[in-house]
Each structure stands twice: as C-alpha cells, then as structure tokens.
C-alpha cells in the first residue's frame, strides 16, 4: 500500500502559492518538484500536465485539484501539495474554485500512478482534512493531518 503521507515530504509542500491561471499553478508545482530534484525535463512535464488537463479537468470538487503528468521526464512517483492564497477557477466538476492542489508526476508505467490518484481522492473525502489543510501554518502540520486521516482509512 502506497501511503500519500510517505510520498509527500515537507519540502514538497508550499502553503502560500500565488497563481492566476492553471499554467502559473503548474509552473509553481514544477518549481517545487524541481527544487527537490524530482523532475528532469521541465518543458516536457509542463506539456504533459497541460495535455491531461485539456482532456478533462482534474478539479475533483470541493476546492481540490489533482493535476498530473505521466512521462519519462519524471523518473519517480512524486506528489507535491500546493495551497493557493487566492482561490483559482479550475472548471471543476462542481464549479467551485480551487485552493488545495496535489500535483502528481511519475514515469509512464501506470498501475501505481492511478492508485495514487485514487488515494488522494479517497483521503480528501474527509471534511476535517480539508479544514485542517486550509488552516495549517507549517508543512509538517499538513503532513501530520494527512497521516492521521490515512491511519483511519
């Protein structure tokens, strides 16, 4: 079982992100992953994120988005958590703007990748976690909140 709280490291959490568009948001996420050495070819990752978003919005509702890219330029499965200062319009399933973003990148082999996406959706069903993630001040507290929810699943 892959735990979300094992994949997200404190250095992969940014709680004060400014983005006025999906593209700016992706750049922030890629920057975060690149700083942790998780991505190799930034333009390729960026394109993969945009392409997937064009097929169908990854705004999963209740203010959460899970943009993701599967491509060889991301050798390891990585997840970063971004919290937007201002809500961003995301063409979500429920039309609500987004503040919590889990950006996922990974290599082309897919099984584990989809499992992580499904897990994020599952973990985010907890209303408490939403509130906690919107309220926390430190990356470590965000991680603890996620870990606590996962322990109960």
């Amino acid at each position, binding site marked *: 079982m892959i735990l979300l709280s094992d994949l997200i490291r404190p250095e992969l959490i940014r709680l004060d992100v400014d983005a006025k568009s999906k593209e700016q948001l992706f750049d922030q996420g890629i920057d975060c992953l690149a700083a942790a050495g998780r991505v190799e070819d930034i333009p390729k990752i960026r394109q993969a994120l945009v*392409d997937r978003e064009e*097929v169908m919005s990854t705004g999963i509702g209740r203010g959460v988005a899970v943009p*993701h890219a599967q491509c060889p330029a991301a050798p390891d499965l990585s997840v970063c958590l971004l919290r937007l200062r201002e809500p961003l319009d995301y063409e979500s399933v429920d039309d609500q703007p987004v503040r919590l973003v889990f950006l996922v990148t990974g290599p082309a*082999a897919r*099984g584990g990748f989809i*499992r992580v*996406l*499904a897990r994020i*959706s599952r973990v985010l*069903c907890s209303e408490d976690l939403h509130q906690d993630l919107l309220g926390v001040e430190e990356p470590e507290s965000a991680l603890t909140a996620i870990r606590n929810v996962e322990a109960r699943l």
Partner: protein
Amino acid sequence: MKIVVVGAGEVGTHITSHLSSEGHDVILVDNDAGRLQKAENDLDALTVQGNGASLAVLERAGGGSADMIIAVTNVDEINIVACVTGKALGIKRRVARVKDVDYFAERAGRSMQKAGVDLMVNPDLEAALDIERLVSLPGATDVTDFGEARARMVGLYVAENSEVIGTPLRELDRKFGPLPVTIVAILRNEETMIPDGETKLQPGDHVFVIGESWLMPDVMGLIGEDIEPVHNVMVVGAGPVSRHLARYLVRHKIKVKIIEENAEKARRVAAELDHVMLLHGDGTDVELLDAEDVGQMDAFIAASNDEETNIMSCVLARHLGAKKTISLIRRSNYVPLMHAVGIDAAVSVRLSTATAIMKHFRKGEILSFAQLKESDAEALEFLAQPGCRAVKKPLLKLSIPRNAVVGAVIRGTQVIVPRGDTQIMDGDRVVVFALHDAIEGVEKIFSC
C-alpha cells in the same frame, strides 16, 4: 405503472417496447392505423387510433387513470397539447418531445411548465450531448454519467499492448493496487459477459468500466490507447445536431469545420455560428476531405440526415487518417458493423431521446439509466432509501443476480468502487450494471 405513449414512430415504439417488457401497462396512441397495426404485432401494448392531443381520444386510451403521458410524435405542438390535455385528465407526469429550441428559452420554458409540460426533451440536443461526451474522451465508444457526473461509465477497446492483458482481474488488483474502477462488462465475439475475478482481458475486447469521472482518462490509458487532447474536429452536415454540437465544441476552444452539401444552408449556418468554418461540399468527396486536412482531425463526426452517407464518410475519414470517427445513425442494425469498418462510435437520435426521456420516467427511486447500443444490457442508478433490502448488508450477501454487478456507490461527493464487503448506506446512489434477464431481480433488491 400505466403509461400513455403518444406517437408510434421510432421513438414511441422504442419506448413502448422497453416499458412493456418491464411489465408496465402501455397504451400507444397514433393517428396512423398502419403504424399501430405494426406496433401491435411487434409489441406487447394496447393501441388506440386517433389524435393524441384530443381529450376524447386520451380518455378512450384510459388517460383518466394513467400515471404518465409521454408525447413523442414528430410535431412539437401535438406533443405539447397532449401534455396539457393530460394535465386536465389528472395525469401526474407529462413529457413532450420538442424539437424547436424557441420553446426552451427561459420564459417560454416556464410557461410550458405552467401549462402542463413537466419535461421537454429535445432530440437533436440529446444526440449532440452524447456526441460531445464521446469527442471529449477520445477512445471512448460510450460515455454515460451518473451521480451529477461524479461517476462515469465508459466503453472502450482493450489495446494490443495494454498492461492489463492476460492477467486475471483478481490479480490485477494485486499487481496495480485496487484499481479505482469496476469492469462491469466485456463484449467479446458478440457476447456480453459480466466478468469475475478469474476473467482475463484480451486485446480487442470491448469493455465497459465505471468509476470516478475525473480518473477515466487515466484508466482508459491503462486499458486502451493513450489519450491525447482534442483540438480539431470536422463535422459533416449542418443540421440541428451538428449546430448544437458545434456550439458545445467551440465553447471548449475546439476548432470546428462543418461540411454541408446545400450551399444556401451552408451560408445560413455560417452566419448563425461564430468561430465555426463552414464548407460547401460533399462529405463523401475524398478530394475535399483530403484538401481540408481530414487526416489532421482529432475527431470526425458524420451527422447528415442520411445514415449510409454518414457511415461512408466515416470510413473515408478513417482511411485518410482521422483519429476518431463517430457516425450518427437512425437504426441500430448497423451498430455491430461499426467497429469492423473502423467507426469508433455510433450515436442514434432515437436512442439518445428515448434514454433522456426514460431517465425521468423510471420508478421514483431510479435516478438515471443507460441502455447499451451494442447489447441487451443496462446501467441503472438507484437511490438507496431507508429500509430498502440492499442497505447495511455486505454486497456479497445481497444475492445479486449472476448477470448483474454493482459498478459504483456514490456517497455524497465520494465515489466508492465496491468490493464484496462494501455496505450500501441510506441515501447512497448505487450504479448497477445488468444484462436484460437480471434487471427484474436487481429492481427487487434495490426497490423498497
């Protein structure tokens, strides 16, 4: 339930056949004696000859004690008046097939409701919506939404190089972790089967999967071909279905070219639609298709009035390199041929309309419904009401018929992929997939 259907055309007979096979009392009303005779021979329904908008005729058809009237003649006004008359007779639920979009404008729509039409279904719009869902998900042969579009059923073909081939479904869970979808059906050699844990997928299998909508593109990439975004679409025919479709596609920033045979119509539609390129020509003209870069199209939709022309255009477009081809059809006889000649999906105005109407008529607790074009199977969305037999018991213990499977459980905003130990709770929406012989058994379990 006692239901009066007005209009024995394609939509009317389709709905009648479906409803009577489910044990409802259906009375079919039409002016045309010949049509009624044919319907009587083919369907298990009573018929009454006469004008379905007339009070006397509807009374003769037993309208006074009917629970519902479905008016689906070719004439909007007859359908609307039939509903108004039905209201006067005390029929509680009233549905009209209405083609003219002017009746849907906000004020007109409200006045219709006041007059007695509960629901207006526009056939062209329903077909356009079905096509749009197919275009936006390349690789999909069928797309149906459940639970306010949170869950989705998609039909697709298993790719030659898919990683899921040859592994029993039970093992797939171990290999990839629990997949966030239920594989509810496999069409193989013209047989529809509900898979079990031992089933192995084969290349070319036509599979139907149900899961969270937003994950579908990723799941489809795992089972079928990789999905690329859609940028360019070519449409043959500038009829109402094409015009509705073009409006949707433009809204999603997709470039649309429409080919129309009639020069005058092409000019008129060009003036009507913004950001759409209208070409005057024949949709089966290879040189024209080639000159207009049909090979660069992410999707090619043949939606003219002539079904043979549509099929031919799609075959040509595919040959010239269009990535996805969708044909509008009238009869379902051709559906089994489609894949063999390289057509990815078929949409029937009749079936889209009947499905849209049926969604609203079903017994109270059924919320949504989809019938497969390719086989005698359905997906049903139930609301689990307190006290219903299915609630608070593990799925394994529900004695669900062999030819049925629970595809998804929608609880609030959460979409649960069920396993044997999953329990349905009060208020859940449950999507069940069933072959025809299992539907009655399924309805028993999920009705109160």
